[in-house]
């Protein structure tokens, strides 16, 4: 099995550690396998070591300890220009003194490719990002989104099997960003390339990736498909970091293999999925997604618990209603309900009863 996995992994970080100053570890014991053709996103707060990992993979930083393997071969001692990894930089790094076509031609020239072949490839790459007419322009004469597409085309034009992108959409406005997210994923899947993508925008990570690695403090907190990440966070950090989250603090009262009963600080008892709790009496944080609180008590399953809270605030947001409730010692428990004709609108001060299914309550580390 282990052997099998090694063969499957196109990129493998094997117990990689990195320290810049010799005092603290920026990346702590990173193990990560990326199969061929996968779109993997590294997501995490600022300073969590994402860029560092990418730079080690690209060859611009050396791992302090551990090994990075590409297609089964250790690349620790291979200089960046021999790794054949395409890279899109956060500020695009298009060469300002060259035209767009020259920028694209550059990686082909350094590979000693013939002129006609170069021109054909450049043209194809430009067409691929729908920038065919812009070959003669300088990067400074392009808009941000156009520059971004050229940077992408340049990273792809020499047909690398692995492409790294470090927050490539950070500088774009929301609309353009969404359009480019779509284009990047489309291209990646059409070309069948492996992509390691860095972002600290969680929506971007969730919509684009096959798998997401959530980084914090130099450690991967969870590596999973986007839906798993959102619905089944492994720990409170991931629960907090991905999407909106309600946290109820309490103590574990009883514990079986599939159920943890938690006594919330407000006195209520709640049945939860035991994810990160080991023994009775332990402090825990129960994570509940805002849209999983059920106001229609008829819809609840058998293992659900019912809670009563007081409405603090009701916000009309168009497609949804957002209600802030104080319940069980928590003042900002959020409930999101869809704006449907028979959904009642609550008013502040009103008492409200709602239910939580057991599978939606995850008892995590305190």
């Amino acid at each position, binding site marked *: 099995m282990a052997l099998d996995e090694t063969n499957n992994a196109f990129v493998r970080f094997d117990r990689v550690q990195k320290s810049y100053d010799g005092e603290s570890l920026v990346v702590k014991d990173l193990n990560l396998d990326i199969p061929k053709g996968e779109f993997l996103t590294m997501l995490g707060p600022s300073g969590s070591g994402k860029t560092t990992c990418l730079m080690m993979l*690209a*060859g*611009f930083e050396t791992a302090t300890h551990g090994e990075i393997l590409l297609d089964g071969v250790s690349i620790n001692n291979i*200089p*960046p*220009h*021999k*790794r*054949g*990894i*395409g*890279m899109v*930089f*956060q*500020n695009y*790094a298009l*060469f*300002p*003194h060259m035209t767009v076509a020259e920028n694209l031609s*550059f*990686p082909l020239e*350094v*590979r000693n490719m013939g002129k006609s072949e170069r021109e054909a490839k450049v043209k194809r790459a430009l067409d691929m990002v729908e920038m065919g007419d812009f070959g003669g322009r300088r990067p400074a004469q392009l808009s941000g989104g156009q520059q971004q597409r050229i940077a992408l085309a*340049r*990273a792809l034009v*020499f047909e690398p099997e692995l492409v790294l992108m470090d927050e490539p959409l950070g500088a774009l406005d929301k609309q353009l960003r969404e359009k480019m997210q779509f284009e990047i994923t489309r291209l990646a899947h059409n070309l069948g390339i492996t992509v390691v993508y860095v972002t600290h925008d969680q929506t971007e990570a969730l919509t684009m990736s096959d798998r997401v690695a959530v980084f914090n403090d130099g450690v991967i907190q969870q590596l999973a498909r986007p839906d798993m990440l959102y619905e089944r966070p492994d720990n409170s950090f991931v629960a907090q970091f991905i999407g909106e989250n309600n946290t109820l603090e309490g103590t574990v009262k009883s514990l079986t293999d599939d159920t943890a009963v938690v006594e919330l600080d407000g006195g209520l008892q709640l049945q939860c999925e035991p994810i990160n709790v080991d023994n009775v009496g332990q402090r825990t944080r129960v994570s509940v997604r805002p849209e999983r609180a059920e106001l229609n008590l008829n819809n609840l399953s058998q293992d659900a618990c019912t809670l009563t809270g007081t409405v603090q605030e009701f916000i009309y947001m168009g497609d949804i209603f957002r209600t802030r409730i104080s319940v069980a010692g928590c003042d900002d428990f959020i409930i999101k309900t869809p704006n449907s004709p028979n959904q009642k609108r609550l008013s502040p001060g009103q008492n409200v009863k709602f239910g939580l299914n057991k599978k939606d309550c995850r008892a995590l580390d305190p």
Partner: protein
Amino acid sequence: MLDYSEKYSMEVADGTPLKKSLARSLRKEKLRALALIAPLLIFVLVTFVLPIGTMLTRSIDNSIVEEILPRTVLALEDWNEKGDELPNEMVFRSFVEDFQDAIADKNHTKIGSRLNYEVSGMSSLFRKSARKVKKWDLTDNAPIKQKLIEVNKAWGDVETWAVIKTHSVALTNGYFLNAVDMQRTPFGAQAQPENKQVLVKLFIRTLKMSLIITGMCILLGYPVAWLLANLSNRTSNLLLILVLLPFWTSLLVRTSAWKVMLQNQGVINDLLVWIGLITEGSRLEIINNQFGTIVAMTHILLPFMILPMYSVMKTIPPSYLRAAKSLGATNWTAFWRVYFPQSVPGIGAGSILVFILAIGYYITPEIVGGTDGIFISNRIAYHISSSLNWGLASALGAILLGVVLLLYWVYDKIVGIDNVKLG
């Protein structure tokens, strides 16, 4: 309706035409801007443009002969300076009258030294003759030609009078001709005698050595600037201080230090002898020649190359090099194709700065240049303070200015002046 809207769009609320009120408001702004820069403008005008302007006019101004010898100049008009006949009695009489007036005004030495620039001996001729001519009584109308020739037989020489006539024009090209090793003669512009031709050679040497110095500064400065731009802030600040350190010591001290280093019994020679590379008898001649000048000036001008380069390199993000390498370029290709072209504006700015400073440098060549390492500026200084031939000095200065402007133009044509950045 159309009429109304058109009228409306062309006028502001109070009925004045839009264009006029726009121009008025712009004029106000311009005046305010002008008032802000006025002090600087006046300062520059008074301390820079005016002195340089008057200095430059000296290179063609020759009114002195006409002013001091007005009657002579008039009388000489009919005389043929190309023949070999002496001027007539009338010219001699006018000259002596002018001469006596000049002596009374104590101007006779001035005209003497002015003409001495052209033919040596003129100064002493005027000075010596003045003692005798001073006491002559001209009222008796006695013939004066022979009398003057008896005072000094140079007055019986056609050439003396030819010189006076040739250089009597108010605006002369004589200084410029002199500046390029030619002279103004009765027969038009002619080359100076072989042994007096030094200035063109000096010009060429100045340009050549300035180019070499600029080239050396580029070679030595580029890696330092690169280091400065790429080291961590703390180390690069330290290095920057080292680069700027020379500015804290006087130029004279630095140049003299080179003298100590390079002279025959100096540090370098001693060291070479000590390690046995050269023998006691074959100590290197590395000062008081072109080599010494190049070494010392490269050292002194290096910061002027490093600083503009550094400030340009500082603006080149390291991600460009990384991008190039990730695209498959070797270190060298990445540098040469991506980094270097972007640092060219810094090289351009530094080169212009160093070259222009070098071409007009004076102190260092004076101290360490010996005879074959001096620059045109040393000659200019000589003419300003020793020979007092300010006209020639101005002409040399004007030519130098012209050369700099010409090179600037060439640079603009080849590299493009908008390709020069100071940061």
